[in-house]
């Protein structure tokens, strides 16, 4: 499927794995960490302005609302560049959301499109059947200048999904399970392609979460077939006609994995690698100091609903800080209107404006030496959320919420519902 999208974007009838191609881009993305570096590089390419002012998205989401003077200067450079070049899709705080939740919501990514983003989790948009991959700032600058990028066509791994997820198990558990199975470089340079009758049982939010963490297995991209669920989402958000590509019956894969969704349990990745996973019943006693629910991985409305279902009528353990980050303004408003904030605040959680802040140890929830967090984010590397001797345990929103209640990593099925 990835190869077909790339062939089209390169103006070729077909491409094969390993081939180097030059592809047309539908969208180029950058954030407040990566865009400033790209903006510094941009003049070196010798173009007066960007290739298409509607096909660039600049989202200051990492250290915003600006955490310090240096961060404010970085965002100012972005804002100035956006103004100078008439870039339509610059999102100021107040409209801003976490980029990988925001762009699909704004209809900036559609099926079959080719997207590069100077952020490794750009692969999220594969949920919509697009080819989307993370690049660095120089590639972003080059993409803004030319509207093109070179790619080495990846080979593919197939994940054949069957069955249906159990209660309190979600897309996060699926992707943690898969990364635990294949390792943090198990899909290095490759495409992770999902298929099978189990796909229809995954919500679009589950698919965003699964595609989002393809990079944590080293993959170039993760991609889902376009089905009724995708088309329903796109009809609501994206004005462009979906470009639908399907994998051939006889498509070649480097490996095929059979994944029975009904056999997956809630899964937790222990420090300090996303592949260091354990099913919830093998976690043991792990006392925690902080819970983070949000991020480009798990800050969508269904994530917040899952957390709220567990937290309703409960209190956060007295030694735990529970922080909730709706990923966009729209999700924030929706959560408010649905009464989720009342549940969170009554339980003793803090609800924030959208930001990537704590996920990467930027701001809004930094860990001290020796502290432990259960987080719905995507990385648990050394020092990721703060002190190099702090620890991050990756989990689903339901596990994070249950852990907030007990103060230990907890199976949500053991929490009695209010």
């Amino acid at each position, binding site marked *: 499927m990835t190869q077909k999208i790339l062939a089209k974007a390169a103006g070729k009838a077909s491409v094969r794995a390993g081939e180097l191609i030059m592809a047309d881009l539908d969208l180029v993305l950058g954030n407040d*960490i990566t865009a400033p570096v790209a903006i510094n590089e941009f003049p070196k390419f*010798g173009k007066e302005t960007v290739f298409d002012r509607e096909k660039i998205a600049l989202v200051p989401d990492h250290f915003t609302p600006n955490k310090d003077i240096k961060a404010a200067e970085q965002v100012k450079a972005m804002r100035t560049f956006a103004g100078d070049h008439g870039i339509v899709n610059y999102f100021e705080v107040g409209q801003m959301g976490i980029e990988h939740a925001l762009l699909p919501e704004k209809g900036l990514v559609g099926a079959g499109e080719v997207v590069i983003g100077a*952020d490794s989790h750009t692969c999220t948009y594969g949920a919509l059947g697009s080819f989307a991959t993370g690049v*660095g700032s*120089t590639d972003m600058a*080059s993409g803004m200048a030319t509207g093109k990028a070179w790619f080495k066509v990846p080979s593919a791994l197939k994940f054949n999904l069957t069955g249906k997820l159990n209660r309190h198990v979600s897309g996060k558990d699926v992707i943690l399970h898969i990364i635990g199975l294949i390792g943090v470089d198990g899909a*290095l340079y490759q495409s992770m392609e999902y298929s099978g009758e189990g796909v229809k049982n995954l919500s679009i939010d589950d698919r965003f979460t699964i595609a989002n963490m393809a*990079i944590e297995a080293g993959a170039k991209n993760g991609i889902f077939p376009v089905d009724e669920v995708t088309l329903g989402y796109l009809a609501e958000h994206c004005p462009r006609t979906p470009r639908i590509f399907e994998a051939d019956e006889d498509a070649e894969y480097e490996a095929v994995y059979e994944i029975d969704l009904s056999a997956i349990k809630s899964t937790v990745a222990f420090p300090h690698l996303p592949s260091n996973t354990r099913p919830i019943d093998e976690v043991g006693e792990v006392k925690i100091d902080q819970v983070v629910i949000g991020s480009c991985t798990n800050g969508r409305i269904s994530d917040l609903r899952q957390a709220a279902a567990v937290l309703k009528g409960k209190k956060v353990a007295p030694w735990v800080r529970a922080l909730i980050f709706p990923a966009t303004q729209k999700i924030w408003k929706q959560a408010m209107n649905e009464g989720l904030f009342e549940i969170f605040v009554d339980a003793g959680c803090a609800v924030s404006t959208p930001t990537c802040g704590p996920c990467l140890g930027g701001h809004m929830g930094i860990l001290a030496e020796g502290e432990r967090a259960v987080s719905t984010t995507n990385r648990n590397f050394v020092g990721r959320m703060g002190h190099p001797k702090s620890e991050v345990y990756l989990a689903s929103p339901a596990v994070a919420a249950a852990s907030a209640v007990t103060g230990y990593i907890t199976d949500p099925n053991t929490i009695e519902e209010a």
Partner: protein
Amino acid sequence: MRVSGTVFRYGDNVDTDVIIPARYLNTSNHAELALHCMEDLDATFKDKVRKGDIIVADANFGCGSSREHAPIAIKESGVSCVIARSFARIFYRNSINIGLPILECPEACADIKAGDTVVVDFSTGVITNKRSGNTFQSEPFPPFMQELIQEGGLANYVAKGGIA
């Protein structure tokens, strides 16, 4: 083009968060980034590293974030080359784009230890460990990539007409 330097030796899955922690990403200043290079993995790196030194690591070097600040911090520290069993793909791309030479060579990685003196010839791909006397053949950079590295990265290369 040849480089020679003392080796800093690291293991598997060296991620971009330890190469340059996100708490220092509120700047794009190269020299400032270099001050914190490898900080959460090897706090002594920045004081010990000398111009021309070489980093040797195992599998999946540079995994994680797309931050170009990671190869920038390494290059700005004076490191002349990174050799690993394998690299994470965005890091690989970023390194080439900013003109930091990186080579995949599992055989060399099995031989090279911390503190060894290693010589790398980019035109032939030959890696020589002065301590053990062993030489290893990595895939040499094609001429355009050697030129790109000499120009200091993709932007300068393109500006000079490198990609027609």
